[in-house]
């Protein structure tokens, strides 16, 4: 749960938003968060630094707006041609160097101030190097899902990123290396950090140090093809113990269960294994998500649907009904095969 302090800041952010957007009505209830992806509800250092800068920039631009808008309104009201106009032309004024100089120098000073505030935050976010206890994750963008590899921990998973919560006093940040297997993508979880693109042949890095546990949402923010819209991001921020438990569980190979051997046979003798891995079996494809611990995930199809047996069946039968343009082919299985296959997948915990 968010602490009182951060709740207070979130309310402040909301109120500023109201002023800027002139839309007070919809924000009437400040106790409920506006949106799980609100950039003004930061929960990690990069997002918080950006939040601070954004308040400063909003204040400066808001002040400029008020001044210039007042001048515009004043001249439109004050200098309108009146009904009983004498028909003579107003005094013809051609310019004034002093005035021009004033409205050149003042904006230059404002720009310098804005630049310095911006450069500071760029340094905070871009020049931080990973401490020795940082978690290293490699995120690989695919059409249209996310692959996560924890090189130091020997874990491979998909679509749901798990990271430990970071204590502000003894931070355990997560440093993410961003790669792409195909086209450009962008990793954007607004409450944790700004977005960074995943570009093939151009590795990028970013970092987060979430300070509250919970699930943080986001989605791909660079158009990557037909199903760009359903390439959703879920980041699970867990306590240290929960995270360690999750890692231990993810490192186990898949358990073979004789009760579902028929389903396993179907899985291993159809196209499934061309793209999917189930560790400890012959399935070692890498084009699609690793399914070794499929049932430990809350969603399927990169967050497009809840991970329920019905959704799994619909997905396997024809992915296009849930996510048109998805690159997984329809499997053309009959009902018995589908049931057996689903039963097998449900043992992959």
């Amino acid at each position, binding site marked *: 749960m968010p602490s009182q302090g951060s709740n207070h800041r979130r309310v402040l952010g909301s109120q500023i*938003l109201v002023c800027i*957007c002139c839309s007070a009505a919809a924000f009437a209830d400040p106790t409920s968060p506006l*949106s799980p*992806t*609100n*950039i*003004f509800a930061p929960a990690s250092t990069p997002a918080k630094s*950006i939040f601070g*800068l*954004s308040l400063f*920039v909003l204040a400066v*631009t808001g002040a*400029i*707006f008020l001044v*210039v808008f007042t001048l*515009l309104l004043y*001249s439109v009201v004050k*200098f*309108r*041609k*009146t009904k009983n106009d004498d028909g003579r*032309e*107003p*005094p*013809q*004024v051609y*310019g*004034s160097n002093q005035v*021009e100089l004033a409205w*050149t120098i003042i*904006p*230059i000073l404002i*720009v310098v101030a804005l*630049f310095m505030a*911006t450069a500071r*935050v*760029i*340094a905070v976010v871009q020049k931080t190097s990973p401490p020795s206890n940082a978690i290293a994750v490699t995120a690989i963008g695919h059409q249209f899902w996310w692959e996560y590899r924890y090189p130091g921990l020997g874990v491979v998973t998909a679509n749901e990123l798990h990271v430990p919560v970071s204590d502000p006093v003894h931070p355990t940040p997560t440093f993410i290396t*961003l790669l792409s297997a*195909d*086209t*450009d993508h962008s990793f954007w979880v*607004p409450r944790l950090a*700004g*977005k*960074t*693109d995943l*570009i*093939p042949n*151009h590795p*990028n890095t970013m970092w987060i140090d979430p300070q509250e546990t919970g699930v943080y949402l*986001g*989605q791909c*923010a660079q*158009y990557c*093809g*037909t199903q760009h*819209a*359903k390439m959703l991001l879920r980041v699970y921020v867990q306590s240290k113990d929960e995270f360690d438990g999750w890692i231990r569980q993810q490192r186990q190979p898949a358990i073979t269960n004789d009760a579902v051997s028929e389903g396993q046979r179907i899985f291993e003798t159809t196209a499934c294994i061309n793209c999917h891995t189930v560790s400890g079996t012959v399935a070692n494809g890498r084009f699609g998500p690793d399914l070794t611990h499929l049932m430990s995930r809350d969603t399927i199809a990169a967050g497009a649907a809840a991970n329920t047996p019905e959704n799994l069946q619909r997905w396997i039968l024809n992915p296009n009904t849930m996510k048109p*343009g998805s690159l997984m082919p329809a499997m053309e299985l009959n009902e018995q095969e589908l049931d057996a296959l689903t039963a097998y997948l449900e043992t992959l915990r």
Partner: protein
Amino acid sequence: MSTDAMALPRTEPASRPIVARLHDWVTTVDHKRLGILYLIYALVFLLIAGVEAMIMRIQLIRPHNDFISPQVFNRMFTMHGTTMIFFVIMPVMFGFANYLIPLMIGTRDMAFPRLNAFSFWMTAFGGLLLYFSLVGANGLYGAGNAPDVGWFAYAPLTSRTFSVGHSTDFWTLALLVSGFGSIGTAVNIIATVLCMRCPGMTLAKMPLFAWLNLVMAGLVILAVSPLTAAQIMLLVDRYLGGHFFDTQAGGSAVIWMHFFWVFGHPEVYVLVIPAFAFASEIIPVFSRKPIFGYPVMVGATVAIGFISMSVWAHHMFTVGMSSAANNFFVISTMAIAVPTGIKIFNWLATMWGGKIEFKTPMLFCIAFLFQFLIAGLTGIMQGAAPFDWHLGNSYFVVAHFHYVIVGGILFALFGAFYYWFPKMSGKMYSETLGKLHFWLFLIGFHLTFDFMHIPGLLGMPRRIYTYEPGRGWDTWNLIVTIGVFFQAAGILVFLGNLLWSYFRGKAAGSDPWDGWTLEWSTNSPPPAYNFYTTPLVQSRRPLWDLKHPDDPDWKYE
């Protein structure tokens, strides 16, 4: 005081068969006819691209809507963006430049009339080629026909691996062909402004309209060339085994971004500087004062031209540039706010102390000022790179650039249409319909684009054909979509007004606004040779001098 006395008596051309008249239009090299062809062509594409926008907005009216498929949606945003930039705003600006520059600088035609015709037809065929993709192509993984790679077509989505079929080729070739047209027109505008001015009109005495279009034309040459180069490189990649953008073979996706945006950002100024030019002509006339600080306005425009060549990578703050590069593009981007701010202050100072008449063109220009101010300020927000790490590629940036292009450029354009329609057609438009158009479009614009900022702040990325419920985006998207219908109604009133006034409007006379630049000294519409005698000017406002021989401008300049 009217200048009707100076205009020639109207000579009605004998009625000719329609085929002969059409033939005249197709083979014309007259700058006025080519200008009008550009305008009509752009209005047709405005309707098409507007319908594409409406289709997208209907799809986004609520979460998980299935009005259209993702494949269709992706084609719609690609076609909408490409069409609006390359086949609406650019041609419409070239149309006004073509029509007005020779009239404003007191000459008979553009410097190269045949190049002028060639350029128009290249642009025209470019647009037709783009839309021919609807019958001639298919695209991403079996997904359709029209291009669906987005208007900036990032590599490697455009490679043959990801974009099978020919839709990307239609996109590439359409931009290549219309790019040649744009460069031809730019060369023509530069040559005309530099070499064809009437006696007495030094560079310092040109109307600001000519100055600003000169800067625009310079930018076109500098900006469209790299785009053309990039399109050729893309074709080489796709058909001749090149690897410029082929990331699998060591090519670079980021190089495409640099090529595209080194075109793409100056392009924004290519579009907006002519809008500044309209405002700089219309605001003085309806405030009854000369433009405030003419030399500063020229200097600020030239400064914008130069600075705009060094800001392109602010479109790329999220691609992982070094902090040094990010800092450079922050400072250059913010620097451009200074000359832009100067221009806004000068327009305000022009209105200050004047006698403002709220005719339709002026209403549009005042709204332009207000909206361009906001667009500039949201631009500064995105110029602060870390803030842009959130805002970039979100609906905030979509709202921002529509604020520039619709709230700024299109509003100024509507002002220009109403202001010069009497000159081009000889008829006066309906002021009532003009004001109805203004208010409908103003309400629609603000409903759509004010509220579009908010889902961006709440984490909604652009180019998604649908979205999840429960993200706090639903209400905003509904309001945004409602606004679109007001805008569409406004556009229909606008087109109706033009058509009705053309056939039924009252005669406008040569100088309905009591204007000061040379185009108001000749007939409406002007004869093929423009002026009966070559004008001779002594100041920036030759008609003011004529109308006020006791107090001419040249005494003060």
